[in-house]
C-alpha cells in the first residue's frame, strides 16, 4: 500500500473501529432513512386510495423513490460532516493535523466513510420499501447507479462547504451539519416538478443537481426513458459545485492555519 493509501486507510480504520465499539452510532446510521421511509410509504399508500390504479402506483413509486434517493444526499453529507465532528469532539484533530496526513487525504478518507455510512443507512430502507410497499429501487436498471453517484457527490460538496464553515466558525457552527441539507430540500424538487415552484425560485432549483436528477427520475417513472439531458445537467453542476467546494475548503483551511483556528476549533 502506498503512503497516501495507507494514511487514508488509517483514518477510515479509525472510524470503522469507532462504529465497532458503539452500537448507538451504528443504529443511528440506519434509523432515520428507515423511519422516513415508513412515514412516507404509509402516507403514499393512504393518498393513493381511490386513485386510478396506474396513477396510484406511479405516485407511490415517485414518492418512495424520492424519499430513498434524497436520503442519499442527506446521508452522504452527514457521513462527511459527522466524521469530521467526531474528530473535534474527541479532541483528536490536533494529532491528525500534525501527522503526515494531507488535507486532501483526510477529505478522501471522510468521503470513503460517507460512502460506507450511506450504504449501511440505505440498505434497510431499501429492503423495507421492497417488502412493505413492493417498490424495487433497482427496477429501472443500471441507470440508477448514475443517479446514486450524482446524489452522493452532491452530498459531498454540501459537506465540504459545512466543514469549511467549521474551520471558520469552529464547533459553534456544528448545528449547520444537521440543518443545511434539510434547508436545501424545498429547492431540490424531490417530490414535485421544478415548474411547480414560483418563477423566481426556479433558477435556484435548476442550479442544484438534485432538481435535475428528480426531474429525470419522474421522467423515467412516467415514460420508462432516461432523460440524458437532465442527467448531463446534474453531472455538470455537480462538477462545478464540487470544484467550488474544494476551492472554499482549501481557502478556509489555509485561513484557519493563519488564524490559529486549528488549535481552538473545538472551543
Amino acid at each position: 500500500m502506498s503512503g497516501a493509501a495507507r494514511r487514508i486507510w488509517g483514518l477510515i480504520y479509525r472510524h470503522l473501529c469507532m462504529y465497532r465499539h458503539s452500537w448507538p452510532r451504528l443504529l443511528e446510521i440506519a434509523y432515520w432513512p428507515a423511519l422516513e421511509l415508513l412515514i412516507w410509504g404509509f402516507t403514499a399508500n393512504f393518498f393513493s386510495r381511490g386513485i386510478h390504479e396506474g396513477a396510484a402506483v406511479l405516485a407511490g413509486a415517485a414518492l418512495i423513490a424520492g424519499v430513498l434517493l434524497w436520503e442519499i444526499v442527506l446521508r452522504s453529507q452527514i457521513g462527511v460532516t459527522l466524521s469530521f465532528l467526531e474528530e473535534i469532539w474527541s479532541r483528536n484533530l490536533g494529532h491528525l493535523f500534525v501527522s503526515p496526513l494531507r488535507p486532501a487525504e483526510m477529505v478522501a478518507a471522510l468521503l470513503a466513510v460517507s460512502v460506507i455510512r450511506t450504504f449501511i443507512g440505505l440498505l434497510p430502507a431499501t429492503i423495507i420499501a421492497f417488502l412493505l410497499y413492493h417498490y424495487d429501487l433497482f427496477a429501472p436498471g443500471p441507470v440508477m447507479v448514475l443517479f446514486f453517484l450524482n446524489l452522493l457527490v452532491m452530498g459531498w460538496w454540501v459537506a465540504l462547504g459545512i466543514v469549511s464553515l467549521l474551520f471558520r466558525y469552529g464547533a459553534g457552527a456544528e448545528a449547520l451539519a444537521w440543518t443545511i441539507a434539510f434547508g436545501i430540500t424545498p429547492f431540490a424538487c424531490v417530490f414535485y416538478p421544478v415548474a411547480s415552484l414560483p418563477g423566481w425560485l426556479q433558477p435556484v432549483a435548476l442550479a442544484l443537481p438534485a432538481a435535475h436528477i428528480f426531474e429525470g427520475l419522474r421522467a423515467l417513472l412516467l415514460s420508462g426513458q432516461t432523460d440524458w439531458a437532465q442527467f448531463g445537467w446534474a453531472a455538470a453542476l455537480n462538477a462545478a459545485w464540487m470544484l467550488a467546494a474544494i476551492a472554499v475548503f482549501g481557502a478556509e483551511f489555509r485561513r484557519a492555519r493563519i488564524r490559529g483556528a486549528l488549535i481552538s476549533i473545538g472551543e
Partner: protein
Amino acid sequence: MEAISVENLVKRYPATLAVDHLSFSLERGRILGLLGGNGAGKTTTISMLLGLLVPTSGRINVLGHDMAHDRFAALARMNFSSPYIALPARLTVRENLEVYGHLYNVPKLKHRIGQLAEQFRLTELLNRPAGDLSAGQKTRVALAKAFLNQPDLLLLDEPTASLDPDTGDYVRTALEEYRRESGAAILLASHNMAEVERLCDEVLMMKQGRVADRGTPAELIARYGRENMEQVFLHIARSEAL
C-alpha cells in the same frame, strides 16, 4: 546538524503580538527546554513548528525541510505529544496506535506496538478503550504514539504531567535513552523544573513572545545566583524587565 532552525519568527494576531522575532536552533541529539509562563508564546511557537499555525513572518526549517513549503516531509519524521490533545476515547489503546501507525506509515506495526507497549508499561492496557484510562495512563499512551515512527525530532508538551513519581522517572529515563540511542532531538515544554534540569542541554526562557534568556540550566542558575531552575523561572517570570 540542526533539527530545528528558527529565524526571526513573528506571529501577530489582530490584538496581540504572540511571538516577537524569535530565533533559535536545536542540534540533533540535544534536548532543548522551552520555558515560560502562561502567554509567553510557547504554545504558539510549538504550533508553528508543527505546521498548525502559519507565522506572520520569519522562517522555520525542520530536519532540513522548510515548513512553509515542505511541511509534510518534516512531519513524517517528527512526532508530538501533549496531555491537552486527546486520542479517540472509544478506540482501544491498540486501535489508536494502529491508526497512527498507518498515518505515520510505520513498518512491522504489530511488532512496533508490542515494543512500545512493553516500553511504556501498556501491555495490560492494549485492549482497553483509551477513554477508560487514568490521566497517567493516557499520558503514557500519548508518549507511545509519539514514539511510534521513531522520530528524528520529538516535540513534547508536559510529557510527564499526571504521572506518578515512579512512572515520571521511568519516562524521563526512556527519553534520555532514546535521545542517546537514536540521536533524535527533543524540544520539551515543561513546568516541571526538576525535569528540565535533569533532561535539558539548553533552556530557552520565553516572556511576552521573546527570548528572555537562554543557556544551560547550570549557566542560568549561576547567572541569576539561584539554587535551582525553579527559582530562575520565578525570577524571570516576575521581573518587570525583559
